[in-house]
């Protein structure tokens, strides 16, 4: 990995959300509150042999989420992070070979990949008043990918 790649990934994935918080939080305070939802990743919490900049940026984003939640809860601002599992999107179909997709799927307790709607429904819930007591959390929408012992992966047939 080049230092340039590290800087570029951190600039988009971590400086970006920080700048968005920096400039939307004052508007939210003026309006009596708001909900910030950062999209993080399982790679922000678990190690891998590839994509260290991505994982580091997403781990940092979880910390940013908790710091924003801690600083502005009293202003009516909630800040949470959503960690999707592998989601089937056009970008994924273009970038990730099917055998690798199947490797992810074989570690999911719900035996399928995620859909964009799996994630969007959770984000819409967190943005709504129904989630008004939820802040500073990391919510996983990953089919149980990170909920089991590594020894259970790939999941044996029942």
């Amino acid at each position: 990995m080049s230092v340039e790649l590290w800087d570029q990934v951190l600039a988009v994935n971590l400086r970006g959300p920080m700048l968005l918080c920096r400039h939307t939080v004052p508007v939210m305070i003026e309006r009596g509150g708001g909900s910030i939802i950062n999209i993080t990743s399982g790679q922000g919490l678990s190690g891998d042999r590839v994509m260290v900049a991505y994982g580091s940026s997403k781990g940092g984003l979880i910390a940013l989420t908790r710091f924003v939640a801690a600083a502005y809860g009293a202003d009516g601002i909630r800040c949470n992070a959503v960690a999707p599992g592998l989601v089937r999107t056009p970008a994924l179909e273009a970038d990730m070979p099917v055998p690798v997709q199947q490797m992810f799927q074989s570690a999911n307790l719900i035996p399928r990949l995620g859909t964009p709607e799996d994630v969007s429904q959770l984000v819409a819930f967190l943005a709504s008043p129904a989630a008004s007591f939820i802040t500073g959390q990391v919510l996983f929408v990953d089919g149980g990918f990170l909920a089991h012992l590594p020894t259970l992966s790939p999941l044996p047939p029942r």
Partner: protein
Amino acid sequence: MVTGGAGGIDVATVEALAVAGAQVVLADVADDTAKAAAEKLAAQGLSVVGHGVDISAEASVERLVDSPSTPSAASTSWTTTRR
């Protein structure tokens, strides 16, 4: 406000928020991509406007937040796609 808004997960998020009654700003790094994705949803009667933004650049983020097309910052979500 949904950044990365023209991506697969993000378009679904914009749609879910708009269907729930929110006025949504769909922001993405390419202005034309953001506007095209927003227009597709607006054509379905949803309240969505597109806006270009480079979230890594503070001046660009300021322009997005200050834009008259940004109706409210009451709720914000963003995702990032750089790997």
